[in-house]
């Protein structure tokens, strides 16, 4: 018998509110409120539309930006690399032809797609949002169902503003208690992934809950949801609350006046009911979390910064060869500490950690300090608006005196696709989200950390426990 007072999870509530049609034996037709696009995964989909002779069904619900291929120096000049330039030009042409709003290079709203959506107020609670990019999960921080899709699905959304999908399984991850000094949102998510592995969330939509999550700012929540995909999850979200409403209010595309009141009434219903059933539930304690760092070549290979790299023999036998391969790639030995290792590059940026709060936190820490002479430090704001805000607040001056380079917005060294690459064999402490082989450039070695831990490495030139530098 179906229990009458079963209650719904947040994912189910939003999902059910967007089902256009649900038939036995068929996937649901799910309505998509907002479609974000960028230059890399859209051209073949636009091409598909052209072949079918179809328009973009709801161009006003589609927003484009150029981020993956853009240089972060001299953005006023034409892009030097030919294929990158071609892809960015193609986006401009396609958006003009199909009537899609483009915040391209030079536009005051341009930036990483997952940074501009929230800051423009496009990202809102209760929405369904997709993008041909796996880190679309970022937008879940607002209590939205947001996930990455393939290019053929990009074409589906262009053509119909809908997707054919099966309802996903749900997992609740609770984090409770107070975070220690020097420990932030990035450490929470790196800790969770290290605990459950890079495949631990496969097949699930994750709802993050608990007192620790509630206490986070919106930008910190975005950092958490951003990396849901790194444990294999379809997406991650957090129920909206006053923190969310305060963040959205007054932004460019947020509802205004009476519309705001109507929206707010609805948003306040967006939480998982008390008796809602999740397919899986996990709980973690904030006090167990130290500043985190990855030592291997997937985001699940993370540990507390003071820990030793795990022993190879402690790994399941079938996984030992790939564990060894990862350590060989990184130039590390098992059972060794990582603390004190010299660093060549520090990259503070990407859709995980390039927002104004990240830049403020770093500036606050480095004020009056100097970078180590052997380290190159790149700070890449997530958007033109973040860049402008940083300059307005004088953060650029602080970075400059510390010897940090403040570059122009884009994905930058998060992926070895544009001009910003880490040279082969070099160690990069990075606030981005992926440490795969070659992710930051062929044979580059990536260690994922929080902005604060990255700043500590920048000033000491080596892997450092930031807690020792905090007064």
């Amino acid at each position, binding site marked *: 018998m179906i229990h009458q007072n079963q209650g719904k999870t947040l994912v189910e509530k939003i999902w059910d509110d967007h089902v256009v049609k649900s038939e036995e034996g068929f996937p649901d*037709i799910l309505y998509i409120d907002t479609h974000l696009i960028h230059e890399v995964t859209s051209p073949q989909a636009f091409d598909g539309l052209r072949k079918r002779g179809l328009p973009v069904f709801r161009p006003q619900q589609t927003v484009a930006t150029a981020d993956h291929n853009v240089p972060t120096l001299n953005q006023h000049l034409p892009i030097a690399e030919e294929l990158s330039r071609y892809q960015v030009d193609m986006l401009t042409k396609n958006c003009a032809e199909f009537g899609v709003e483009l915040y391209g290079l030079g536009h005051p709203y341009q930036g990483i797609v997952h940074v501009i959506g929230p800051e423009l107020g496009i990202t809102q609670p209760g929405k369904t949002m997709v993008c041909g990019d796996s880190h679309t999960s970022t937008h879940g921080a607002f209590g939205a169902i947001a996930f990455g899709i393939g290019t053929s699905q990009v074409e589906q959304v262009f*053509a119909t*503003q809908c997707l054919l999908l099966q309802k996903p399984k749900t997992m609740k991850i609770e984090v409770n208690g107070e975070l220690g000094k020097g420990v932030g949102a990035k450490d929470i998510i790196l800790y969770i992934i290290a605990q459950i592995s890079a495949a631990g969330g496969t097949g699930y939509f994750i709802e993050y809950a608990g007192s620790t999550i509630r206490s986070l700012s919106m930008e910190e929540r975005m950092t958490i949801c951003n990396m849901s995909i790194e444990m294999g999850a379809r997406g991650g979200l957090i129920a909206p609350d006053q923190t969310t409403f305060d963040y959205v209010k007054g932004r460019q595309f947020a509802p205004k006046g009476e519309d705001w009141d109507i929206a707010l009434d609805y948003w306040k219903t967006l939480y998982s009911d008390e008796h809602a059933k999740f397919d899986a539930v996990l709980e973690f304690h904030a006090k167990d979390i130290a500043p985190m760092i990855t030592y291997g070549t997937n985001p699940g290979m993370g540990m507390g910064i003071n820990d030793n790299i795990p022993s190879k023999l402690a790994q399941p036998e079938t996984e030992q060869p790939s564990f060894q391969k990862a350590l060989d790639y990184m130039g590390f030995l098992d059972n060794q500490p990582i603390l004190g290792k010299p660093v060549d590059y520090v990259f503070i940026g990407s859709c995980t950690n390039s927002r104004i709060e990240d830049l403020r936190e770093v500036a606050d820490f480095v004020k009056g300090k100097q970078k180590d002479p052997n380290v190159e430090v790149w700070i890449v704001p997530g958007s033109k608006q973040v860049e402008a805000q940083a300059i307005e607040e004088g953060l650029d001056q602080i970075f400059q005196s510390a010897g940090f380079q403040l570059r122009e917005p884009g994905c930058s060294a998060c992926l070895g696709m544009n001009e910003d690459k880490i040279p082969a064999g070099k160690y990069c402490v990075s606030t981005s989200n992926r440490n795969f082989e070659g992710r930051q450039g062929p044979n580059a070695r990536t260690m994922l950390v929080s902005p604060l831990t990255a700043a500590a490495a920048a000033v000491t030139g080596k892997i450092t426990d930031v807690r020792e530098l905090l007064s």
Partner: protein
Amino acid sequence: MKKFETITSRVVPLPIENIDTDQIIPARFLKATTREGFGNNLFRDWRYDSNNEPKADFVMNNPTYSGKILVAGKNFGCGSSREHAAWAIEDYGFDVVISSFFADIFKGNALNNGVLPIQVSDEFLEKVFETTFSNPNSEITVDLEAQTVTIKDSGDVESFEINPYKKSCLINGYDDIDFILSHVEDITYFEKTR
């Protein structure tokens, strides 16, 4: 996508198990940027020798056997998930692949490209091979609506399973976009009433 209609055709028998997608279309042919033209390289290394001469002993080079139905051994399409394998089979001119087991990803890729993978029992598969080898002109009828496959010579019939949504896609020549567009009134109604 073209509409899938009842097919009666001779068959191309390939009684080999575990045919992986690297055999169906070798990796070196994946550099093309369109979906067209892969048929020329279907089973490339079985069809041609290193001098690009057709290998006489391979079934596809034997004019005795032809048709729109490929019949293959158990676990067809395993290995790499490349959709190019389905494109190659479709581009070559096969509408149906019959086997006693399909790798999951290949099955999905085939259906998305208008190729019907039919899973039959080991016994039925054996019968198809026997009939074809004793009479290469014998035909098979695939009735998607009724979900049956019939060996004309012997009259043996077996029914097969297919996801009802994918069935309607094939019968109507729809892909996912066509399917959603056929509900465009539902979409606009949803937009008005939410």
